[in-house]
């Protein structure tokens, strides 16, 4: 094991990569083992935890889900009621979608009330807000995918609301709906946005978020 590692390290110099992640010190004031009230500093980590759960459960869901209006509903029904542990995986994705919003909201409030967004961490706050909006976008697009009445009418109303925007409203509608009505085009579009576009954007933003935390460190105690 050690010789394999040394062989790799000699060629790629990988030690600094993990040393950078592993060796940084966690200060006392964010460590719940020292002060229980520091659990508020766990919200960000838990948001990331739920995000990982969302990515993994979502990957498993796409093994069964079919993004077309004839089969979408029955494929969800099948994986919910017939597939082994399908109800658990879908339950994780369904409830995780709500939980990630809750945890992210709590994390935002923690950062806000501890004033951690102040200089020099302004950019990280802005990135965090962008992540928030991407998450809301993921929630909105994912809501349509089971293609039941709730999904259909919520999306219809959502697109109607977006349409009221001056000048660009009609273009937003066209972009989201993909056709004259909420239908087959809309479903495939929302699927693509939900599964490819937004997760890619979110991972990039998360990378930036974590990079800045490492660069700037955690804000000091109050």
């Amino acid at each position, binding site marked *: 094991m*050690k010789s394999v590692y040394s062989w790799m*390290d*000699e060629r790629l*110099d990988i*030690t600094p990569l993990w*040393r950078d992640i*592993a*060796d940084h*010190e*966690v*200060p*006392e*004031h964010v*460590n*719940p083992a020292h002060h229980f009230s520091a659990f508020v500093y766990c919200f960000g*980590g838990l948001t990331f*935890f739920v995000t990982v759960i969302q990515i993994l459960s979502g990957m498993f869901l796409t093994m069964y889900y079919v993004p077309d209006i004839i089969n979408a*509903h*029955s494929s*969800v029904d099948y994986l*919910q009621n017939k597939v082994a542990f399908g*109800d658990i995986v879908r*339950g994780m*994705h*369904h*409830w*995780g979608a*709500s939980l990630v*919003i809750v945890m992210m909201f709590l994390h935002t*409030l923690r950062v*806000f*009330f501890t*004033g951690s967004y*102040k*200089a020099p961490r302004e950019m990280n706050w*802005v990135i965090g*807000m962008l992540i928030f909006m991407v998450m*809301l976008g993921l*929630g*909105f697009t994912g*809501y349509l995918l089971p293609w*039941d*009445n*709730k*999904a*259909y*009418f*919520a999306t*219809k*109303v*959502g697109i109607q*609301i*977006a349409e*009221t*925007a*001056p000048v660009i409203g009609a273009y937003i509608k066209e972009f989201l709906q993909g056709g004259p009505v909420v239908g087959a085009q809309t479903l495939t579009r929302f699927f693509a946005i939900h599964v490819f576009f937004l997760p890619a954007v979110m991972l990039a933003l998360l990378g930036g978020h974590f990079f800045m935390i*490492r660069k700037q*460190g955690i804000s000091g*105690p*109050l």
Partner: protein
Amino acid sequence: MASSHNKDEKIIYVGDSRVPQKNHESVPRDYMAYPGKSEVFIPNFLLKEWMVASVFMVGFLVLILVDPAPLGEIADPTNAQFIPMPDWYFLFLYQMLKYPYLANKFVVFGTIVIPTIAFGALTLAPFLDTGKERRFYKRPISTGLMLLSIAAIIFLTNVSWMHYEEELEAKGLKPEKHATGGGKKKEEKMGVMAKDHPGFAVFKKATCVSCHGADMKGMSAAGIPALLGVGDKLDQAAIMNIIKNGSENKKMSAQYDSNINNGITPDEMNQLAEWLSKQKKTP
């Protein structure tokens, strides 16, 4: 682990223009401000921190097992009864659009102006609140605005949900939670019972079939309930009461007299009600 890396193993790039010699400036500052009590992230901190994730995960899985993810009936664009509702975290935005100065002619205020100001201000918070003070109780303006926003979000979400429940009640609907899957299985088991009963023959010539259908499945999209299994919910007297006086939510009008006028005798009407009360999932 951390000490296993000795200098002999380190590769030295000679004449390689891509990789500059490490100057170790990117190594994060240590937390000298917190002497003695800080600890390294891996493994010391994570070995404690995983417990937080475990507690969280247990709660999460309990939630999943207690309340399975809902799945309603397949989307039916012609369903005029369905009350559209976004997911709960959009409710406060949705509710805002129901107030007169944020709707209709002024809808742009509700859909664009206010959300843009709110989310814009939140996004630009570091550039609006530039003071050095970090403690929230020494920043009354930003703290006050945030608390006010949270109160508004909670209030609007709550009002929105209450409206929804009132609307459901007024329309006599129930939210579709597990309509398919579980529901379908029940329906397959549930057929028309007691077909040799004289009430079945009455049912076929009575006015019931025009709305509830000859298969007794009703029309869920128009809010007409199925009569299959009606005996589980209502007894003969209650069914007769609905036939005579119409349904409680006024969707179904009184049918008794028109059936009598169509030549069905009162005796046959009683047989009909008796037969309907026998429509149970389990005989």
